[in-house]
């Protein structure tokens, strides 16, 4: 009886949304889009690939392995355990000018900076300069949390403890004399690392902040004395330390050691003989690791990297091939147009 009064109150709203008639773009993988699309992608990729490859080829790289596990190697004498202040020299020659700026890297292989337990073994609060964590470092640093006399280690943890400790000097051999190639260790770490992520405690002198703490077990110098030449390059914002603390993604990695941008060598290393002096202290032979130094220059796309160029070329060519295949298929089995 009531029904007549509430006429069509139940009628659903007639809107595009409720009726599922929203205006819509209905793309289809039609031949007109897919085949030219593949061609364009292919061409673009080949273009990029060629550019990358050519650029990559123009980049000069010199790799010198100085692990010294071979008896004939110059550094063989240093691999015996418990050597202190062992130095070894490796000489090499450049046949042509190594265009500048030249970057000097050290490279480690089979070194698992990306291991989970290794990665967590640090205390971010401590490294952020929070002194309360100096006295009681995070338990994640274990077993490098406290030393044997139960003193807190700063910086604690495996990452800091395993910091790369070899140092290098590069000499050009000019007429029999060794001329030191000057290089620069400024700004080799990320800006965000030394200005945001890592901080020294705001205590002057810095050394006071480290009272009642000990340096990491493997270290020879405490953190506040890492760079005796530059007082602002000490503590947690030491560039070498930061470079090390930025953990590599893969077990074989390079890390920047110095830039050669100054003086006579700003335009590059001229052809000639060079001598690399290594203060060898970092053990890698035990776990089958290798140590290298690498000299390289860079281009607009970074360092030498053949992979990207080749990959782009391959993918680009495949796209072109695919477009041809699809064209043939399309021509042969034209989409049936019947109702």
């Amino acid at each position, binding site marked *: 009886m*009531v*029904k007549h009064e*509430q006429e069509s109150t*139940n*009628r*659903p*709203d*007639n809107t595009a949304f409720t*009726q*599922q008639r929203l*205006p*819509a773009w*209905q*793309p*289809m*993988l039609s*031949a007109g889009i897919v085949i030219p699309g*593949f061609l364009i*992608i292919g061409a673009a*990729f080949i273009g*990029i690939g060629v550019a*990358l490859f050519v650029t990559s080829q123009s980049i000069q790289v010199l790799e010198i392995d100085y692990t010294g596990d071979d008896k004939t190697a110059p550094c063989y004498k240093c691999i015996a355990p418990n050597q202190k202040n062992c130095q070894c020299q490796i000489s090499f020659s450049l046949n042509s000018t190594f265009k500048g700026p030249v970057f000097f*890297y050290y490279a480690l292989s*089979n070194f*698992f*900076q*990306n*291991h*989970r337990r290794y*990665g967590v073994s640090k205390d971010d*609060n401590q490294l952020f300069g929070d002194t309360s964590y100096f006295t009681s470092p995070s338990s994640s640093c*274990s077993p490098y949390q406290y030393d044997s006399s139960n003193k807190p280690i700063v910086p604690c943890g*495996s990452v800091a403890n*395993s910091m790369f400790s070899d140092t290098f000097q590069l000499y050009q051999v000019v007429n029999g004399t060794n001329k030191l190639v000057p290089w620069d260790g400024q*700004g080799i770490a990320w800006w*965000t*690392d030394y200005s*945001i*992520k890592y901080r020294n405690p705001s205590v002057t002198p810095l050394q006071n902040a480290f009272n009642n703490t000990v340096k990491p077990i493997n270290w020879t110098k405490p953190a506040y004395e890492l760079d005796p030449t530059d007082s602002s390059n000490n503590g947690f914002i030491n560039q070498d330390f930061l470079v090390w603390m*930025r953990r590599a993604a*893969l*077990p074989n990695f390079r890390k*920047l050691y110095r*830039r050669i941008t100054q003086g006579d060598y700003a335009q590059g290393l001229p052809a000639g003989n060079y001598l690399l002096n290594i203060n060898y202290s970092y053990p890698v032979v*035990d*776990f089958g690791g290798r140590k290298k130094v690498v000299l390289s220059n*860079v281009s607009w*796309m*970074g360092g030498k*990297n053949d*992979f990207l160029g080749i*990959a*782009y070329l391959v*993918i680009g060519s495949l*796209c072109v091939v*695919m477009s041809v295949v*699809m064209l043939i*298929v399309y021509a042969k089995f034209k*989409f049936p*147009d019947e109702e």
Partner: protein
Amino acid sequence: MAFWRRNTHVEKERRVKANARDHNDRFAYADNHIKTSKYNILTFLPINLFEQFQRVANAYFLVLLILQLIPEISSLSWFTTIVPLVLVLVITAVKDATDDYFRHKSDQQVNNRQSQVLIRGSLQNEKWMNIRVGDIIKLENNQFVAADILLLSSSEPYGLCYIETAELDGETNLKVRQASTVTSDLGDLSKLMDFDGEVMLVTLRNASRGFLSFSVFMLVKVCGLASAVNLHLFMPCPSGEVICEPPNNKLDKFTGTLYWRDNKYPLDNEKVLLRGCVLRNTEWCFGMVIFAGLQTKLMQNCGRTKFKRTSIDKLMNTLVLWIFALLVCMGVILAIGNTVWENLIGQSFQDFLPWNVYQRNAVFSGFLTFWSYVIILNTVVPISLYVSMEVLRLGHSYFINWDGKMYHRRTDTAAEARTTTLSEELGQVEFVFSDKTGTLTQNIMVFSKCSINGQTYGDVYDEFDQKVEITEKTPCVDFSFNPLCDRKFKFYDVSLMEAIKLEDPVVQEFFRLLALCHTVMPEEKSEGHLVYQAQSPDEGALVTAARNFGFVFRSRTPETITLCEMGRSVTYRLLAILDFNNVRKRMSVIVRDPQGHIKLYSKGADTIIFDRLDPSDEDLMYTTSEHLSEFAGEGLRTLALAYKDLDEDYFEVWMKKLLFASTVIENREDQLAVLYEEIEQGLKLLGATAIEDKLQEGVPETIARLNLADIKIWVLTGDKLETAMNIGYSCNLLRDDMNEVFVISGYTVLEVQQQLRNAKERILGLSRVTSAAGDVGKTDVLADDSVFEETLIAEYALVINGHSLAHALEPQLERTLLDLACLCKTVICCRVTPMQKAQVVELVKSHKRAITLAIGDGANDVSMIRTAHIGVGISGQEGMQAVLASDYSFAQFRFLQRLLLVHGRWSYFRMCNFLCYFIYKNFAFTLVHFWYGFFCGFSAQTVYDQWFITLFNIVYTSLPVLAMGLFDQDVDDQYSLRYPSLYKPGQQNLLFNKRQFFLYTLQGMGTSFLLFFIPYGAFSLLVKEDGSHFSDQQTFAVTIATSLVIVVSVQIGLDTHYWTAVNHLFVWGSLAAYFAILFAMQSDGLFYIFPRHFPFVGTARNCLSEKSVWLIILLTAVVCVVPGVAVSFLRIDLFPTLTDKVRHLQQSRKKQGPQAQNLRRVRRTSSRRSAYAFSHQQGYGELITSGKNMRTSTVSPAHSPDGTPHGSSWMDNMLKRRNEVSCVSEEKSIRAPESANRHTQPPQLDVESV
């Protein structure tokens, strides 16, 4: 509720003493407090959490969370799991809490309703929840009935009262209840005090109880002695006690006995007002509470609905187990890897990374690594999957509710998805089980032909004696002579009118019978403006026909029926109604005409009436029988009419027997049936009527379309075999061009078996022949066996009747039946009971791995609707029972095509795409860790930032895939309907199955492989432009994460067929959100606050400012996406599916512009009318009502038809006239016109109890 019941002992019978709380309390009956809510404030958290953690997924994540709290294992921070878990738990809890809040509110509202209770002789207001069993309460007009109460008295004469039962069964029409005659005069408080048990003496009570049980025994055993005599033995004994059945959920049944003043009075459903009803048109009434609160029939019927799950759900469960297995496999591989690594390298790497306390040996380290990897790789089973699926289904349900094309204007009903968990299953339906009446047919009956005394009327002939097709233009018979006629009634044969005018006595008797023998209720809103309220449309049609031909049924009282016969008012005394039920298949009335003759008028099924005819009528019987088969051939529903003159003495004796039988508690129905049978003998045939049953709109088209979609439609009807076949033809289910229609009608198991086997052999035998011949021709269409089989099926149909079905459903035959039925395109089962309907559905459901859908409108379909995977209720004229039991409801059968072919197809398509993509996405996301394991010493180092892992599934990628799952359309609705074959992939499970799962898993793995190894290749030697080293873990993580987000976004873009604004917003928005959050998370600000939790500070800006990183991302994205594009392009080109073709067509049409509309196939409107041959008048609803003879009736004005103008409704009339009615005849078996409505007696309740 279950709790409650467990606590109380099993009640065998209920004894309630009026207003004796102390007495009644001893039985610990439920009080009237209702609690449907699940929680309160204190218990919400524990109970809700307990419930939630019963879900496997949640429990799994809880276990993960616990694992993550173990530092030695934890490879991920706890928040990566807890954030999504808490999010999911909170969403669910909020939903549960709101649901429960509304339940609380409604509970509270209901519990606090006021009611007047008789306490110590005065009426006091009480809250509903304080009402107890045995209380006497007063109800007023338009009040809800507080509990199940026994009606004692009312303001209306004879203790009548009117109720609306909308809350119980959805019907808004009024029903009548009448108090027992002995209590009906307890109209005021002083009299009610008599009934009150408060002053009862204990001794008396005990004494009477002993007597009672004895007398009950006597009644049952002996069935003798005049209980009628007892009625008049009023003894001064102030106690009212009711002994009745224990609480149950049968809305239509109540058996009990009232003991008062040492007498007993039978009680039945007509004297009970159920909770949930509303009192109407009655000033007040008194009642005694019999069942309260949770024990009321309403509450007992609120059973928990069975939780249905879709086949995709089940498949997903299996697949999730597989994924777990894969997870464990990967864990084991990596654990072994870890052991080996620790042995070979880790051991010697201890200078820099010493083993800690827990990792003294490599094997134990491997063991820990296993768990670490289980944590890391857990995202292959994303917690958001289940929540997202629920969201999608909810959305799809809303789209169904909102569909304007499934809205029926005439009844103002929109489609309703009553379940939100089944939507994608609508796209997989293979079997539709349909009811007939009200579903396929309109249940609108038109009196179209009749045969009176061997003469047929109804056909129109032209001057050459040729039958004329009746159309809109055919002139109708003019009824203008009759001021009371119904203008909508149309009849075309003038000769019948002439016969009436010639005052042919048989013709007059014929229409007199139609005007008298029925249970229709007249309502005269204004003078001459009659409205009939008929419980079955057949009756309405017949009474309306009689009305127009001059025998106007004008009004009725419990004892009289007033007709206006050719202008003269004639009042008949109604002596008895011998009710219809579908065993009897007839109904009769016994009336005394003004001349004092007693006559029995009977109408019923032809065979039944013919069996009971006087032998002298044989010739007429044969003629009529011929006419009947003629009518049946035209598809009309027929009834035979007969009458009998009764001898006064004979009738009196019979009446006494009837009165006695009607007070018996047990076997009352059987005894009545015997008595009815006794008097309905030796009838004289008058003739037969033929009624046309109209088909619902669009039924044949819908069926044709569903057939094209390979949906097999089985009609399960209560009709006779011949009729059922007629239905089949008129609905396109059976066609003349079918090879063969098998009819199974055996009476024994062996016969049925033989017939089934023969039919099957014929099909198989023929198919071999056809296949040999048809091979050449058919191969080019589609050389597929199954398709070939399908074409075969089109040729056969199976019709099976009720008793054959009973045999065929026995365990040894059901397989044969099913095999045969599945070889046929159409199956029609006739004469099936509601129980059998469910059995048939169950048979298909259990033996075929197919989705079944049952559609029906009546209470007799409820069992079938509940059994099928998907139940659809037609919200039509037959009440709400079917709708309430259904998962989906709408007003018209034709909406089924839209529900299945459009909504179902879309839902399935969307859900499958969603799942495929989700699996792809999560594998691509997670397996990167697996590959990385090989390069990080199997140390369970994650590739990504932990925040990225936390947010990837819930923020970065959830919305685009949800948008796709909600809005995607491959083909629009019009094309979906136009090409029903598009539906087939769903039935064959093509879009998401184990194979697809593997493909997408593989694709995901492949993508993860590329995502890892391309950056790996590049990063091994990657240097920034300023020469600084660059291959650090965090840059690596950001590069891969960015590539991943871009790749999955591009992929969702490719998978989306229908880019609405929402899709654009979500896809681009997600990408934007990714970068925004990435930079925010790695910003200085957050780092200053939580240095430990945001170690990635500065990575994004260092990393994403490099050209080489973007070159890597571009390369990765293209390599990951392009092969998929090529493959799908080639697939579409080489092996296009129908969907592809239709999409293509749709696109090209769209380009051509508006003329596309003209190309739409013109809908064929069928002029064919339904063809039913049998007057299956009241359906199965009456099965239960049989024997309910002690009906009351409304009082109607017994005024003369040309009397003074009077009030608007019969209700008012009745109130006015109540004093004019002379006397109340005791224990009259008068049928209440409306209360007999079958919906109050839902048969499914019985079926369930069987």
